[in-house]
């Protein structure tokens, strides 16, 4: 099978895996950090966190940084594949 069809199917399955829960499961899909704190507090009610983050950013800024993280990573992956692809097609021409 052509690599493009194969990739398309894989991407479709990945998207479905993320979208189906959104449609069928009623949850708030929040991050789990706060919930984990809750479980620890029920297991060890007397436990007090002894260190806190140096700074906590507003959620808007945090989403900026998450987007930035994904963009930097994806950018590099795209660049690397571009280099490989260019090299492969150049080798073919020679």
């Amino acid at each position: 099978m052509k690599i493009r069809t194969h990739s398309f199917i894989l991407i479709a399955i990945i998207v479905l895996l993320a979208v189906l829960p959104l449609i069928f499961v009623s949850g708030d899909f929040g991050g789990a950090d706060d919930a984990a704190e809750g479980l620890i507090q029920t297991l060890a009610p007397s436990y007090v966190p002894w260190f806190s983050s140096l700074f906590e950013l507003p959620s808007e800024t945090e989403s900026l940084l998450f987007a930035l993280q994904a963009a930097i990573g994806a950018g590099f992956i795209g660049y690397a594949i571009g280099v490989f692809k260019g090299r492969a097609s150049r080798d073919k021409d020679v």
Partner: protein
Amino acid sequence: MTFKKMLSTLMLIFGFTVYLLLNDPQQAYAMHIMEGFLPLKWVLIWWAVFLPFFVLGLRSLIRITKEAPELKMMLGLAGAFTFVLSALKIPSVTGSSSHPTGTGLGAVMFGPLPMSVLGSIVLLFQAVLLAHGGLTTLGANAFSMAVAGPIVGYWAYKVMMKSTGKQKLSIFTAAALADLSTYVITSIQLALAFPAEHGGVWASFLKFGGIFAITQIPLAISEGLLTVLIWNWLQAYSSNELSILQRTMKGVRES
């Protein structure tokens, strides 16, 4: 893959979702351990366990870049993959979100050691800039994501390659298990630090692990598929690098 095969895969996913849907949606505890939420004793223990792997990882990174500088791009790619994937907070069947780890790809390409460095850089970024995870818990989080996950992934790849000989299936399994085992280790770490009053560590482990194993299973499958996707691209365009990898790393074998 024929249409029939594709259809059966889709049915499988659908059935899986429905099955998990019938279980009560619960909050998941599937992120890395938060800042300050590990008692000092365990902070020190996990830092002590993690650091030797970090040093070995640094040494192996230096060796790779010296002996095969043409692999630098691949190393960057393995790091970038982890960087992207750990930024993707994907909704899961338990009604909360968690993210994949992306360490399986690098572990299969370079062996588990270099990932101890690449993975912990990602964790440091998240701990410092995003208040996600933490500096005190970095040792524990780095052990689960950057050390244990890649080791599990690497051996899963080896065993699968030997028993089935199917490379893509092996890579899928390696990436999915590297992802899943990271969160299993996290729940062990939390259970050790916070044993339940009745039932002790084991009861706590079931509480932490039972809940987020379910959250992480579909994400582990996603990660396995994503890793196969990028592997396909690499195989199509950079067979040269892959053959160098095969010679120098002994890990990867062409199918």
